[in-house]
């Protein structure tokens, strides 16, 4: 006999603290592996049976369809990959502008909840409750069919300083040739401006901004409420105005709470942009759907779609995590 056996050696393996967690993890991992292998195997097998193994060569074929709007030069004779890229650029365009707009509006509405003006406070509350309780798809349909498509055309178009709203598009003043500031002009019953946005873009952007801003407002309100009341009172004692107090004292502390919450709202906005097809905007999803219909390459197109949205959202997350690290309390 060797050295006497300790109590640990007599513990059965199913009660061993080192074995059990390992075994559980191994079993869970195995289940995941089997499920994934089954799904992939099923896919490959069925695609092979249908003669539809994954192939990407079709991406170089001419698309054959036009796009209603594109920020990069595109015509029907150019390949599918360029059409999808144009769709992706359109998606990014609405996402980036939407993020900025939703942040500004959301912050304003969220801060308004702390206003001493009772009307402003109630308006902000009413806006949040109204908007966040109606499905986004319905709101997009509303903005597009009820608001933007009801805009008048030509002379009757709604003219604001530097901005004309017409059914044929939204015309903005911008720097034209030689960096000359140009205003929208009406020539021959048709508006012309250096910067023209489609009503589809306008409707989608408005819908996304108004919807996401309601959620951001709540995140901002929560962040501000998390700052102790004493900070407001101390600033008031020192003679700061409410606006300066918010900007210089409360917001920097509130940001630590707000930024992580913003992250998920930004991601939702990016994903929700795929509802563009409800209001006729040529986004990535819309182009992918046409591509799918014409090539029959369902799996490949869906993989591209999934990958694109995943990359967009991971990018947003990475940026927001960076911002989060920057606003956190620096501990030594």
């Amino acid at each position, binding site marked *: 006999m060797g050295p006497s056996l300790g109590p640990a050696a007599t513990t059965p393996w199913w009660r061993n603290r080192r074995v059990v967690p390992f075994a559980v993890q191994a079993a869970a991992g*195995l289940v995941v*592996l*089997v499920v994934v*292998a*089954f799904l992939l*195997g*099923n896919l490959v*097998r*069925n695609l092979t*049976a*249908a*003669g*539809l193994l994954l192939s990407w060569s079709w991406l170089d074929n001419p698309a*054959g*369809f*036009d*796009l*209603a*709007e594109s920020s990069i030069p595109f015509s*029907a*004779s150019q390949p599918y990959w360029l059409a999808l890229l144009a769709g992706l650029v359109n998606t990014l365009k609405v996402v980036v502008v939407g993020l900025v707009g939703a942040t500004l509006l959301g912050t304003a509405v969220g801060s308004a909840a702390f206003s001493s003006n009772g009307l402003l406070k109630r308006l902000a509350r009413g806006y949040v409750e109204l908007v966040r309780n109606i499905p986004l798809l319905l709101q997009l349909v509303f903005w597009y*069919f009820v608001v933007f*498509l*009801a805009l008048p*055309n030509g002379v009757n178009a709604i003219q604001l300083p530097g901005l004309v709203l017409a*059914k044929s598009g939204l015309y903005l003043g911008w720097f034209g040739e030689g960096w000359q500031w140009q205003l929208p002009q009406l020539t021959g019953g048709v508006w012309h401006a250096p910067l023209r946005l489609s*009503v*589809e873009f306008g409707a989608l952007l408005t819908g996304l901004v108004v919807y996401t801003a309601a959620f951001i407002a709540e995140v901002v309100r929560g962040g501000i409420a998390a700052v102790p009341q004493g900070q407001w009172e101390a600033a008031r004692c020192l003679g700061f105005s409410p606006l300066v107090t918010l900007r210089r004292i409360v917001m920097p502390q509130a940001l630590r709470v707000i930024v992580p919450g913003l992250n998920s709202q930004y991601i939702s906005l990016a994903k929700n942009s795929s509802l563009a*097809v*409800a209001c*006729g905007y*040529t986004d990535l999803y*819309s182009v992918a*759907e*046409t591509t*799918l*219909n*014409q*090539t*029959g390459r*369902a799996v490949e197109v869906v993989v591209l779609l999934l990958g694109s949205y995943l990359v967009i959202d991971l990018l947003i997350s990475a940026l927001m995590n960076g911002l989060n690290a920057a606003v956190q309390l620096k501990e030594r």
Partner: protein
Amino acid sequence: MVRFPRLAAVVPFLTALVLVGCASEDGGVQSQKLATIKARGTVVCGVDGKLTGFSFVAPDGSYSGLDVDVCKAVAAALFGDPAKVDYRDLNSSERFAALASGEVDLLSRNTTLTLSRDASGGNGLSFAPTTFYDGQGVMVPAASGIKGLKELAGKPICVESGTTTELNLADRMREINAAYTPLKFQTADQTYSAYLQGRCVAVTSDRSQLAAKRTGFPTPAAHTLLPEVLSKEPLTPATVNADPGWADAVRWTIYALMQAEELGITQANVAAKVVEAKANPNLADLRRFLGVEGDFGNQLGLPPDFVVKAITAVGNYGEVFERNVGSGSKLKLERGLNRQWKEGGLIYSPPFR
């Protein structure tokens, strides 16, 4: 860690075992689908559901239309009862996925037969005989004064995404070298609302569909079809490529309706024709067609009198046409290309031999 590779080796084996079960559902025996449908007792039919004349749901939930009658004829041929159909409303983007995944047995949804949809390297469908020869048209408000395609240059045109019309429009406009803005919507409702709201100066689709949708407009007379026909649109029911037995059953049920019109057999006189055929052994053609002699039904996996059942349920092709889209309907479409071949049309059934 030693055990892992052995387990990994088991995974594909297990997967393969499970998959053998999956695979035998579709391939293998010739008409597995037919057996599945018979066991289930109903045909699941994918239709549009919103297109007057082709497939339209009435307020009481009942379906009617030319596409619907194809479903009814197939159900009648199989079960002797045209009501044994489960309808699924599908939009143009989801229709092929629904068929390929087996969610519907038969797609009877104003679908254009094209090479890429037929080919196994494309959508991999199996097309039945064309039930409606259509062409793509363009509708504009009558007040716009637009008389031809050329005048649409530089203008926005509404089109439903996921359709052949989208491609044809691009091709024709490129031919006449005219730039235009295609505004794509996912559903027909959105497409026509945007057109009626004046976002587009024109809307394009199959001429029959434009005529059908126009009947639902506030003032149908305020909209006209341009004379140009942009494309050939043979609207054709489809099944999956993988089951030729089921495809044959659908194909010959539709041919039976066409053949019945050619032989002058109608919903009203089919019973009398059966009596006549049974009484007279010299009418060999008629006896074979109506299943009084021969085994055509058996060869297709259908009852011997499937032709009689289909005609009793919906009538012959001419009756189906007139009732749903022709003179007996709101659409009042001409037979045109959809006349029998003897009258100069394209409706032609191969012989029942």
